[in-house]
């Protein structure tokens, strides 16, 4: 399978603190890759550095045949590398529909109609302001915006964090549908049950480095790795 995104030796600083210390990973066409790690390990920093929301000090990022390291976030987004950020990035004073409309880009396989079919709740609330949505609705809106924006690779930062189990299931199903439509996904997720359901491969990040890497089956049976890197006891 061809490689959609390849990251090598990514180094990022916040001021003087050296947060990412040589991250390397890849996402192939058609797969879902999960990035795991404890709080503060550098997962969000990795996604932000890849899409240009943060400027990495060093590293190569190849996306669709281009080295996009150092590109500003808007250019990476125009290229189809779309981040659904941890805080969801909703415009609270714009209506749901305005949030969606400013995200529409020519050529996207998803239309507003498709979005309302996938997320009926967004249609019901389309005249509400983004700030009035529940956490789950905001997450749906954030994913929906990325879909309208013609994604070639989607990066989701903890999309089900803090959501009720029904909503988690709904979002998991939508993520799988997006994968079916051929969009590769790099997802940061703490919830191992969710990871097991969707991820084809897993990376674990520890103190700004990739400490572990395995495909889904290997990882599912590797109690020791989960205990050691994530502090999850085998049961």
């Amino acid at each position, binding site marked *: 399978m061809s490689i959609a995104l390849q990251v090598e030796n990514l180094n990022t600083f916040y001021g003087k603190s050296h947060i990412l210390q040589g991250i390397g990973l890849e996402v192939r066409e058609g797969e879902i890759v999960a990035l795991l790690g404890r709080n503060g390990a550098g997962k969000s920093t990795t996604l932000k550095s890849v899409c240009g929301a943060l400027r990495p000090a060093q590293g190569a990022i190849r996306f669709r045949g281009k080295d996009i390291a150092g590109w500003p976030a808007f250019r990476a987004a125009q290229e189809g590398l779309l981040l659904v*950020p941890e805080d969801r990035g909703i415009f609270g004073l714009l209506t749901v529909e*305005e949030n969606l409309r400013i995200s529409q880009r020519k050529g996207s396989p998803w239309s507003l109609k498709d979005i309302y079919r996938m997320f009926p709740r967004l249609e019901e609330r389309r005249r509400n302001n983004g700030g009035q949505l529940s956490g789950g609705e905001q997450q749906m809106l954030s994913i929906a915006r990325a879909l309208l924006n013609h994604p070639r690779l989607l990066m989701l930062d903890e999309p089900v964090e803090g959501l009720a189990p029904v909503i988690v299931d709904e979002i998991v199903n939508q993520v799988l549908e997006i994968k079916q439509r051929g969009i590769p996904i790099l997802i940061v997720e703490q919830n191992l049950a969710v990871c097991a359901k969707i991820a084809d491969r897993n990376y674990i990040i520890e103190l700004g480095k990739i400490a572990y890497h395995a495909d889904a089956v290997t990882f599912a049976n590797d109690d020791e790795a989960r205990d050691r890197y994530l502090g999850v006891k085998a049961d």
Partner: protein
Amino acid sequence: MTYLFQIFNGIGIGMLYFLLAVGLSVIFGLLQFVNFAHGAFYLLGAYFTYDLVERGYSFWVAMPLAAIMVMALAALTEIVLLRRIYKLPHTFHILVTVGLALIIQEMTIIVWGPLGGNVPPPEGLNGVIIVGDFIYPEYRLFVIAFTAVLAVGLWWVLEGTRIGAIVRAGSESSENTALLGYNTLRINSAVFGLGAGLAGLAGALAAPIRGVEPFMGLEALGIAFVVVVIGGMGSYTGALLAGILVGVTQSVMASLWPEGARLMIYLGMALVIVAMPRGLLGRA
């Protein structure tokens, strides 16, 4: 009847204040940037109009051309200078833009002299309208009508179009706007140019009413801030309401107690700050 005359005058001037204030307010909303050079763009709009009319151009050419020139100049200033200081504390914004305002004002004096001049009302609108015993200059009526149409158009652009939604999104978070693929640097320059261009247009429209002189920019800056504070930062209808309130107060006071006109306005602003710190129609 004299009051009706003053009230009409006040509405006309108030609409110009609205144009000034709405530019200031949108720029602050998007960039969190305090622009003390805003009055200088008004000054330039008036002087460009004056200059073009002196050179023999029709006012109908001079007025839009002056606004466009101010817009281009402001966008250029934003690209070359101002975008470098957004991230610095507000004191730097004040320092740099006050400096810019002084440079523009002094340049105006160097180029056009310290005395100022007059711009005749444009052809076709230099007469008066008579309704019963109410007599009113046509040009001033035109200013009221034109700015009213402009106000509605601007409101529609900001609230009803995709471009307006992008500007509002940028005002909430430029990072999140960039994540959707928008070049926020370019949006910033465009909005800054547009806001300054509105100030320039207000200056161009004001020129036939009040003439031009080098200190009109300073006065306009003070008024624009008063209007934004009274109306509420970031509130479009607030700027409109406050602009007209200030204009009418000024105009009516000018015939009752001229020395007190300014006092009333600043007193009004102080009252609003104490009683409703977010302004009459400001958002929470």
